[in-house]
């Protein structure tokens, strides 16, 4: 493939673990990667939930608090809608509406991001707090990094915080 020498870069900080915000992050990421941009997704805090290998509720971690947090937060299948969540019913209804209108669902966007080679990195500090190990996360997580590494890697990139 012919790539321009000065490939544009976008880095997205996925802080929120909200369903709708994660859809936005992956929509921008896949759109940017498909239009030949180099894309990095940096997952931190609530965003880490989207990277868990187990998409349901699992008591990940060693301490009681970490286990409780991880169980209550769950994985990709449990991301709440940022508004009108209605105890978790709304993300499922929203996915149905997305399918009805031929809009890619969150799992489809995640799969497309992997296929397009979007770089996925996880925040070391947030993993430490929540006692989530790299082995608890999907294999597409390329690296566990700190903020300094993320900023160095994103030096020439547009940074978007979601």
């Amino acid at each position, binding site marked *: 493939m*012919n790539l321009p020498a000065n490939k544009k870069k976008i880095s997205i900080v996925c802080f929120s673990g909200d369903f709708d915000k994660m859809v936005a992050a992956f929509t921008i990421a896949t759109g940017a990667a498909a239009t*030949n941009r180099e894309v990095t997704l940096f997952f931190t805090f609530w965003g880490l939930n989207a990277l868990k290998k187990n998409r349901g509720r699992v008591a990940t971690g060693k301490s009681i608090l970490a286990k409780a947090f991880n169980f209550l937060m769950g994985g990709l299948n449990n991301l709440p809608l940022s508004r009108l969540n209605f105890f978790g019913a709304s993300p499922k209804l929203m996915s149905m509406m997305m399918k009805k209108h031929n809009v890619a669902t969150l799992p489809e966007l995640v799969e497309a991001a992997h296929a397009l080679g979007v770089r996925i990195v996880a925040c070391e500090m947030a993993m430490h707090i929540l006692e989530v190990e790299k082995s608890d996360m999907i294999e597409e997580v390329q690296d566990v990094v700190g903020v300094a590494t993320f900023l160095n890697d994103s030096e020439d990139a547009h940074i978007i915080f979601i």
Partner: protein
Amino acid sequence: MKHFLDITNETCPMTFVKVKLQLAKMASGEQLEVLLNAGEPLQNVPRSCEEQGYRVLSNEPTDDNKHLLLIEK
């Protein structure tokens, strides 16, 4: 060899995502025919292909306000 892709049922960003993924599977010199809707896909798919160094050989309107794009990798 000519490949075919219908993205008339897709919406942004999967329109150009599917085109990009299909082109990635193809060998240099192969052609891809893409059926797409007017509007956003017609504006963005040919442009993003050209930006990535692919050649848009033709862009013809078909029935029902759709377009047929021929791209060479």
